[in-house]
């Protein structure tokens, strides 16, 4: 509760730090903000060519939308995934990058983590807006589902914030954390149904004569649920399962609480160690 109040009291600082993040991101580049759209565009292109054309991954037909376009199928999951991936990797670095500030001025240091994620959130919203526009042009009437999309974005932001708080403090003490996460990120990417539909994951996997319920294990990953919910709303035009939303919410809120707790513990000697 205290933490919430502190966030609220320093909301102006938070918005200023987010502005700093946004203003400085594309300073001195000729294309500027165009880059924030060019980057996802290039990855969509790559995944479409490799998975859609070469490997012939078939997008499932959306129910009830009737949509079957692989690029749209990809976009609905890839854009949220990018927010997750960039949010985690950049927020982990946020304390080390701002070491000078931490050593010389006092302010709640969580704000550095939060503002990094805040900056990416703005980019994510813009990208999501573009995706929604594309979906509307393609005939997917997503507008009625937007309130739930907003809820999902909030839950995802909390999820990223929780992981950021949990790991950014640790990264100050052990710089390996960042490398470890960089190693883990591609694994997470391929164990989440972004470039392929979840139906490609076998329900049971026979190993040495024993049956492992692979799909159930796979679905324990909250990112699977998250990506699934985005797809249900944007691609299928249907309500995601309540169980899935609740599962995401438990992970998000739980991680924020744990993250904040750990951060408070590590905050103690931050100015000396960073």
């Amino acid at each position, binding site marked *: 509760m205290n933490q919430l109040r502190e966030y609220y009291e320093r909301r102006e600082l938070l918005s200023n730090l987010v502005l*700093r993040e946004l203003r*400085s991101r594309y300073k001195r580049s000729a294309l500027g903000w165009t880059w924030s759209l060019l980057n996802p565009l290039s990855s969509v292109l790559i995944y479409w060519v490799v998975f859609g054309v070469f490997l012939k991954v078939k997008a499932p037909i959306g129910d009830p939308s009737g949509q079957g376009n692989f690029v749209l199928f990809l976009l609905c999951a890839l854009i949220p995934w990018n927010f997750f991936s960039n949010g985690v990797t950049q927020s982990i670095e946020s304390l080390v990058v701002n070491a000078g500030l931490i050593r010389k*001025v*006092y302010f709640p240091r969580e704000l550095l983590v939060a503002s990094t994620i805040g900056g990416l959130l703005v980019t994510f919203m813009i990208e999501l807006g573009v995706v929604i526009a594309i979906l509307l042009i393609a005939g997917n009437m997503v507008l009625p589902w937007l309130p739930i999309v907003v809820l999902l974005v909030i839950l995802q932001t909390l999820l990223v914030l929780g992981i950021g708080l949990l790991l950014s403090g640790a990264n100050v003490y052990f710089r390996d954390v960042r490398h470890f996460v960089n190693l883990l990120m591609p694994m997470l990417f391929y164990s989440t149904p972004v470039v392929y539909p979840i139906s490609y994951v076998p329900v049971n996997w026979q190993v040495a004569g024993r049956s492992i319920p692979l799909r159930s294990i796979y679905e324990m990953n909250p990112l699977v649920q998250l990506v699934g919910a985005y797809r249900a709303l944007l691609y299928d035009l249907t309500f995601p399962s309540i169980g899935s939303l609740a599962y995401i919410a438990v992970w998000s809120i739980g991680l924020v609480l744990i993250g904040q707790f750990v951060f408070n513990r590590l905050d103690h000697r931050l100015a*000396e160690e960073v």
Partner: protein
Amino acid sequence: MTAAVIVDHVSKRYRLYHERNQSLKASLLRGRRARYEDFMALNDVSFEIKEGTAFGLIGENGSGKSTMLKCMARILRPDGGSITTRGKLSALLELGAGFHPELSGRENVYLNGAILGLSRREIDARFDEIVDFSGIEQFIDAPVKNYSSGMYVRLGFAVAINVDPAVLLIDEVLAVGDQEFQNKCTEKISQFRREGRTIVVVSHALSSVRELCDEVALIEHGRLIQVGPAIDTIDHYLTEILSIDPATLGIARRSTGEIKLQGVELMGESGVLPGATALGDSVTFRIHFDALKPVSDPVFGMSLTSSDGVLVTGTNSRDQGLSLEISTGPGWIDLVVPRLLVSPGRYHVTGTIYDTTQMAPIHEVGDLHAFEVVEGNPKTSGIMSLGGTWRAGA
């Protein structure tokens, strides 16, 4: 009077790593713990800073005084004890610390202001004043990476000073910028004092600490040695820790005040000199005093300091075996100099009266008198003349 800052049994431990485990592998190979030694930067320090006063922290390098300031600024958290502050606190630890090089001066003013706890509306209201104070109107929309270091610091100071703090922490930062800007800073700090705000200063410049501060705390090896009136603490620091005779620095110390130095008159052969004398002339320094009660056998001292602060010479009445009995009321004592052999320039006279043990000062004045020495006979170079005579050899 209420306390603006209460420092209550504060301890701060630093870890001095021998081999630091900044990688997980190193940590696993060497066991869970990194090898480090605890270093007590602050050890059970307690004091109070009264509201509306100026408080100084002195001590040698590494004594813990800056750590103390950082604890007050909440940058570091003490391992033991607590620090309570009343009202808003602003720290001038490093000016412009929050500046982003790629952003303009204007954007950075808003950003830095927000970091220091100002709302957007408050910054709007003070923006003109901040820019005006920094004196960089024409560059305010240029990225700060193009600023000179002086401009950078000026803008940083202007923002920090406009936070409107009840308590202002200063760490040696005033030794930056040109003379004009330093005067501006000094004036601003005097204004803060007049407005009844609390100021905490960490500095090595003892004379400015003495001028500015009401109370001073001396910290050595993380422990509080002494806290009290500025003159007492500085005196203790100089004599006990630095082993410097304060009289030679022209820094007045506490005095019992039984005899007060009134002034010095320079007398030539033909009466009182109008503040100037020539090299080689005969001069008498007449030291006037006023005794509040009879004092038996005090020791009078006098030293000359050149305008660039060099102690040129010092002498006292005990060295010549002069025994004095001072009775109540005004009086004077002469130092007769047959030939004044210091080179032309301006000199300051420090006067001292010590008790008979030469341990306790009765009165000291750092700048009792100033006078000019002009070219005379003999001519000389350097800081003095030998007064010798050349003679032809065989």
